C-alpha cells in the first residue's frame, strides 16, 4: 500500500495550481488524472485573466503556452434579424503585462503539468478515482483503478460535477439551476487571416460575447475568442432554462444557428472545424457554494463552485489556480500543526476570504439572479435593435423626428421597466 502526504484528484488548473505550490516543500505529492494526459478532459471558453494570479505563481506565466492577449472586447446584443455591438479597445489593453489571454486547455494544462513534474511531483494520468477512503469520518485516501492510495490529505479538484465532494458529504447532489452548459468548436484558421479579419497586430486577440437570439432568449450567450491559429466559438446556456419545455430548444442546434448568423459566418469562413467539445460551468456563485473542506479533504476550483458570471466578464480559471494555491498553503499549515482535521484545514476558507476569490464571489453574490433576468435575452436585444433600425433608416419620404422615434420604443411603461431592471443592477 502506497502512502503519500497529499493526493490531488484532477490535473486541471486547481489541481496543478495546488501541486505547483506544494512542489519543493518536501511533501510527497501525487496528482491523479483520468484523461490520457493532463488537459485531455478540460475545456475553456475561454480566456484567463492573469492579474489576480501573477503574484501567486511568480514568473510562471512568462513561458506559458498562452494564445493571444485580448486587446479588443466586444459585446453584441443579438436580436432575431439585427444586432447592436459595443466595442472597447484601449492602450491599457495593449500594454505589458497584458491582463488576459485566450488559452486552449489541452495545451496549457499539459504544459503546466510538465512544470509541476519537473519539480518532483508525480502526475499519474489515465487513472480515474472511484471513491474516497474514509476511516472514522476522516478521508485517508482514494480508491483508483482497484488500488488503495493513502494520503494525509486529499485535494479534490475533480471539476464542476465533483463526484468526490458529494461522496465526502461536502455538498448534496448538484442541481441544474446552478450550472450552465457550454458547447464549443475550435475552428482552425491561419494567423495571417485571423489578423486581417479581426484587424489585429501581431499577437493581439479579440474576445466577443453575444447575448440574445443566440440562446433563443434563454439565459446564456455566445462567445468567440481568437487563438494563435484558431477560433474558439461557442454557446453557453443555463441548464435549468434549457430544460424548460414551454420553449423547447435543442442545444446542438443553437451552435449551428449561431455559426450561420450573418454576424458570425464571415468571421469563420474558410476555417476548418478541428474539435467539438462540451462542458458544464458552475454559475451559482457565492450562494451555491458548498463546504470547502472536511476532515482530510479540501475542494478547489470548479469542484468547489468557484466561478463567476457578471455579464461582461465570465471567469473561472483564475479562481481555480488561486484556490488550488490556497488549498496547498492550507495543507502546508496543517502539516506544521500536525493534523488535517476540518478545524485546521479551515484556514483554507480564511485564505480564500482574504483574497480576491471569495471577495469577488461575495461582492457579486447577487449577480447570478441579476444577469439571469430574461429581459436581457429577448426584450433588450429586440428593443435596442429596433431603435437603431429606426434611427438609421432613411425612408423614401420624410424622416420622423428623433424624439418621437425614441418615444415610440421607450414609452413610460418601458422606462419604468428599465428603471426597475437598473435598480436590480445596482445590487451587483
Amino acid at each position: 500500500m502506497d502512502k503519500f502526504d497529499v493526493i490531488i484528484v484532477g490535473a486541471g488548473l486547481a489541481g496543478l495550481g495546488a501541486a505547483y505550490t506544494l512542489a519543493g516543500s518536501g511533501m510527497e505529492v501525487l496528482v491523479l488524472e483520468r484523461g490520457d494526459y493532463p488537459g485531455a478532459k478540460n475545456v475553456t471558453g475561454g480566456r484567463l485573466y492573469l492579474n489576480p494570479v501573477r503574484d501567486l505563481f511568480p514568473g510562471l506565466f512568462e513561458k506559458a503556452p498562452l494564445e493571444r492577449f485580448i486587446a479588443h472586447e466586444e459585446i453584441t446584443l443579438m436580436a432575431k434579424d439585427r444586432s447592436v455591438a459595443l466595442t472597447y479597445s484601449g492602450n491599457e489593453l495593449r500594454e505589458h503585462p497584458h491582463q488576459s489571454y485566450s488559452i486552449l486547455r489541452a495545451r496549457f494544462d499539459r504544459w503546466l503539468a510538465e512544470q509541476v513534474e519537473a519539480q518532483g511531483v508525480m502526475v499519474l494520468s489515465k487513472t480515474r478515482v472511484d471513491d474516497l477512503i474514509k476511516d472514522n469520518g476522516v478521508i485517508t485516501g482514494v480508491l483508483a483503478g482497484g488500488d488503495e492510495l493513502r494520503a494525509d490529505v486529499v485535494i479534490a479538484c475533480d471539476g464542476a460535477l465533483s463526484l468526490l465532494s458529494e461522496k465526502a458529504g461536502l455538498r448534496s447532489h448538484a442541481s441544474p439551476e446552478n450550472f450552465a452548459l457550454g458547447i464549443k468548436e475550435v475552428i482552425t484558421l491561419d494567423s495571417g487571416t485571423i489578423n486581417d479579419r479581426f484587424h489585429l497586430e501581431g499577437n493581439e486577440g479579440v474576445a466577443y460575447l453575444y447575448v440574445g437570439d443566440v440562446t433563443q432568449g434563454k439565459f446564456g450567450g455566445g462567445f468567440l475568442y481568437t487563438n494563435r491559429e484558431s477560433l474558439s466559438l461557442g454557446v453557453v446556456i443555463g441548464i435549468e432554462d434549457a430544460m424548460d419545455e414551454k420553449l423547447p430548444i435543442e442545444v446542438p442546434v443553437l451552435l449551428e444557428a449561431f455559426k450561420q448568423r450573418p454576424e458570425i459566418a464571415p468571421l469563420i469562413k474558410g476555417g476548418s472545424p478541428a474539435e467539438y467539445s462540451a462542458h458544464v460551468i458552475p454559475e451559482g456563485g457565492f450562494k451555491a457554494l458548498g463546504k470547502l473542506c472536511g476532515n482530510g479533504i479540501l475542494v478547489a476550483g470548479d469542484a468547489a463552485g468557484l466561478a463567476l458570471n457578471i455579464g461582461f466578464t465570465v471567469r473561472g480559471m483564475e479562481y481555480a489556480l488561486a484556490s488550488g494555491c490556497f488549498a496547498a498553503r492550507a495543507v502546508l499549515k496543517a502539516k506544521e500543526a500536525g493534523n488535517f482535521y476540518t478545524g485546521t484545514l479551515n484556514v483554507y476558507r480564511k485564505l480564500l476570504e482574504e483574497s480576491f476569490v471569495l471577495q469577488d464571489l461575495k461582492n457579486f453574490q447577487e449577480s447570478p439572479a441579476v444577469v439571469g433576468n430574461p429581459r436581457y435575452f429577448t426584450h433588450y436585444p429586440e428593443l435596442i435593435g429596433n431603435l437603431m433600425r429606426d434611427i438609421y433608416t432613411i425612408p423614401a419620404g420624410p424622416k420622423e423626428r428623433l424624439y418621437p422615434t425614441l418615444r415610440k420604443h421607450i414609452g413610460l411603461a418601458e422606462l419604468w421597466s428599465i428603471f426597475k431592471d437598473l435598480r436590480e443592477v445596482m445590487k451587483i
Partner: protein
Amino acid sequence: MSETVDLKAKLGLDVFKPFGQPHIKIRQGMGKDPRLKPAVRLCPAGLYSVNENGEVMLATVDGCLECGTCRLTCDTEVLEWNYPEGGTGVQFRFG
C-alpha cells in the same frame, strides 16, 4: 435530434479512446420516466432519443463528451452515471 446538425461529422473531429462497459446507463425500467426527457434536447452529442413507445433510449455512449449535463438534468435515480475508465473516452487536443 434535429437533422439540421450533422453531429456525426462534428463528433468525428474528436479523438475517442474505446472503453469497455458503457459508463452511463438508463436504469432498468426507467425509460418512461419524465426526468430523462431533458437529456434528449440537451445532450450536446445527441446520444439520447425517444423510441416509438415513448421511451427514452441511450443506444450508445460512443461520442459522449463527458460534460455531465444528463447527470444534472436527469438525476442518478434514473441514470447510472460515472466517468469512463481512466485513459478512455474523449481526449481533447485543443480544449
